[in-house]
């Protein structure tokens, strides 16, 4: 095998591995959030019910069309954190807040391992120094894991 052939084969292999790795990382980034930073739907409902618990600032970091159909009452729509504009909106919203503010991020657009929004949002808040951030673990989607469970829902903007 001559040198150019070896070079082509090498480049092909590097390219293929890069594509597969990039796809894997993009597709499964939500699964990389440590379990210590997650909160379950029933755990959040308990907090919202409890008069003694601190009410978190709840931020939806997914699609507006989905938010308009159903969202957690008193949660705020920010925009998809997978986009730069969504991340900027998120940073702007939380910038003036004390860094120990209790914040819950959620999306529910897709199955957990495929959600493109929660990990970038969680990373952004931690990079800003927020120390009390939880991400709502939604296994399948917001409909199945929140609405169909009978948890409180609001509609509209």
């Amino acid at each position, binding site marked *: 095998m001559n040198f150019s052939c*070896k070079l082509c084969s*090498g480049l092909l292999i590097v390219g293929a591995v890069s594509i597969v790795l990039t796809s894997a990382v993009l597709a499964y980034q939500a699964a990389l959030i440590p379990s210590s930073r997650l909160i379950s739907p029933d755990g959040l409902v308990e907090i919202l019910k409890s008069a003694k618990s601190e009410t978190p600032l709840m931020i939806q970091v997914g699609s507006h069309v989905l938010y308009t*159909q159903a969202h957690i009452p008193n949660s705020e729509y920010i925009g*998809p954190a997978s986009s730069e504009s969504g991340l900027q909106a998120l940073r702007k919203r939380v910038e003036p807040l004390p860094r120990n503010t209790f914040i819950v991020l959620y999306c529910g657009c897709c199955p957990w391992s*495929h959600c493109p929004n929660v990990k970038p949002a969680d990373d952004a808040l931690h990079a800003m120094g927020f120390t009390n951030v939880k991400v709502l673990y939604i*296994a*399948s989607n917001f409909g199945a894991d929140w609405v169909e469970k009978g948890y409180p829902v609001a509609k509209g903007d």
Partner: protein
Amino acid sequence: MILRGFVLILAVAGLYFALRHHGASDAVRATRVREPSLAPDFSLPNLKGQELELSSYRGKVVLLDFWATWCVPCREEIPHLVELQNKYRDQGLQIIGVSMDDGPEPVRDFYQTFKMNYPVVMGTARTGELYGGVLGLPIAFLIGRDGRINAKHIGATDVSVFEKEIVNLMRGGDGSNSRGS
């Protein structure tokens, strides 16, 4: 060196597909509708701004796919849907994409890049509510020639499942397949 490279590719690809299977397995739900009801009609703008009416496709088998450009499993399905549209167009299949993106710009780019060959309209919250709430993507509805919904698939669905149901509906069946879902 080449052999080692291919082994590495296979290992990474194996990990990728293992993760993919693990992630999707708990999320996919398929429902065969026992008493098919008429698919709610809608009139929505396509990517050129022209109105598309669902009822104008009565007489065709329609796969109504709610999706978004930022939805990874939706993106993975699109090339398969393009193939299905090509394969069964002459037999009366019409796929219609309902994008749940917040605006049409990324959808237009995606449409070109993926060489989509079926109409895509911009969905709204109202459209989602008409279909029982589209609160997670993808969701697909299989509609028979009589305009009735025969099946609903929540989550990424294997193309072979769609194909079986589509062929059955085109032959005048009720869309059910061997899975009995």
